[in-house]
């Protein structure tokens, strides 16, 4: 007889569905009022009753998140490369980066809104700031963690620093880049929403803020559902991409 085997994706779906069912049952059985916690069915109905509103807001927020992530990614990779090629700069630049990282987002976000207005630019910048640091730290350690036996081989070829970087350090840092992406991609969504929360003319953050101030919880949760789905999708996309790019990783080191 054939044994039933569930894939990882099926198990995840099952867990999410059970959670939603439990939520639905709890709300209905205990009669929780909708201004405290709406049932999932109510949230989904709200979502489908206002498709244009949510589509527009999602597009804006996801666009900001994606643009910010891209900038954070590029900046992180470029600075990590620079610090590897010019190691003298590392301490100074890392101190600055940590300083930037430890400044609370809620302090920077309103400032950027004051300086740059209610448009998309401050949201993209905040997302970039938030996603930049994990990329910098991970990629830098990936670039520096070349194996000793590989370094000795390149030494025996009298390879230049640039050649070692291009043919050894850069490919070696790819797994670290994906590890960073797994952290930074969900952070990008948070960055965009938090930035919108502090003042925006549109987006999911704006929708959530409006719903929150009106105690319209189905509206608020509908936005959260979209964000959760987007975060999961982004993570899956990263894993899918990772498997294709770093095909040698799942095998023992040669």
């Amino acid at each position, binding site marked *: 007889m054939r044994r039933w085997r569930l894939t990882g994706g099926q198990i995840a779906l099952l867990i999410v569905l059970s959670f939603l069912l439990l939520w639905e049952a709890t709300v209905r059985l205990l009669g929780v009022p909708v201004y405290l916690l709406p049932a999932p069915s109510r949230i989904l109905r709200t979502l489908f009753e206002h498709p244009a509103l949510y589509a527009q807001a999602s597009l804006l927020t996801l666009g900001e998140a994606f643009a910010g992530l891209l900038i954070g990614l590029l900046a992180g990779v470029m600075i990590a490369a620079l610090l590897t090629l010019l190691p003298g700069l590392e301490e100074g630049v890392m101190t600055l980066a940590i300083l930037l990282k430890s400044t609370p987002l809620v302090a920077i976000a309103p400032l950027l809104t004051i300086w740059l207005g209610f448009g998309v630019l401050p949201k993209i910048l905040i997302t970039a700031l938030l996603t930049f640091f994990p990329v910098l730290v991970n990629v830098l350690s990936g670039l520096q963690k070349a*194996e000793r*036996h*590989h370094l*000795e*081989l*390149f*030494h*025996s*070829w*009298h*390879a230049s620093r640039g*050649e070692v970087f291009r*043919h*050894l350090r850069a*490919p070696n840092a*790819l797994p670290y880049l994906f590890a960073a992406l797994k952290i930074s991609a969900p952070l990008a969504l948070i960055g965009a929403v938090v930035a919108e929360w502090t003042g925006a003319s549109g987006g999911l953050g704006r929708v959530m803020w409006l719903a929150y101030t009106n105690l319209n919880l189905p509206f608020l949760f509908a936005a959260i559902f979209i964000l959760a789905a987007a975060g999961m999708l982004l993570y899956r996309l990263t894993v899918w991409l990772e498997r294709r790019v*770093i*095909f*040698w990783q799942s*095998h*023992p*080191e*040669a």
Partner: protein
Amino acid sequence: MKVEISALSHTFFTPQPRPALLDLTLTIPSGQFTAIIGPSGCGKSTLLRLIASLLQPTSGHIRLNGQTPAEANAARQVAWLAQSPALLPWLTVEGNIALARKLLATRLNHQMSVHEALQRVGLEDAAQAYPFTLSGGMQQRLALARLLIQNAGLWLMDEPFAALDEITREQLAEMLLELWQPAQPTVLWVTHNIYEALRLAGRIIVLSAAPGQIVADIAVDLPHPRREDAPAFQDLLREVRAALNQAVEVYA
């Protein structure tokens, strides 16, 4: 490439001073296949690292055809192979050789193609495979092909086959000899295995336990292929064994 080592000493400071090599003087004529054998921690690897300019000696001199190790390294005249094949996992078999060829291109004074190098180690059919799909023996063969394409005057080999099983190790030792025969570069080959040393090398240097000093310098004048049951082989085996026992006792 002639290797001249005079009064070479090396001490590690980690953090207590730990002498690894002491007052080593040794000349290896061009084209000699030399095995270096000794108890573990006797400074064999340190010696190779000093010649490869991976380390700077505390005192003494090394000259490779009259050049310093750094100069010979800059001329890409010193090839290196260690226990790990150090293959790049993101490149195919062919890609690994092609990269060596590309980075060494300005110094290659011969025109060995990637295909020819792979053919010499019997890997031409695996050209498109990735290293992680190969067995340990095949990976080390690939490393040998990469060594070959460098066309260096000196091969430094730090226990290249130590991680392999007995049968594969014998096959690879055989192959190493075949690859060495045509151009006959100087070989400095660190090994733990007395039989392996006696089958391949023209000379065996026995080093004492740390700090490494030369205990015996034994010429192996036997024609290839060598038979282990030949009386001359057995005599040399006893001689090397005796020297090794002495090497362990010197500082014990």
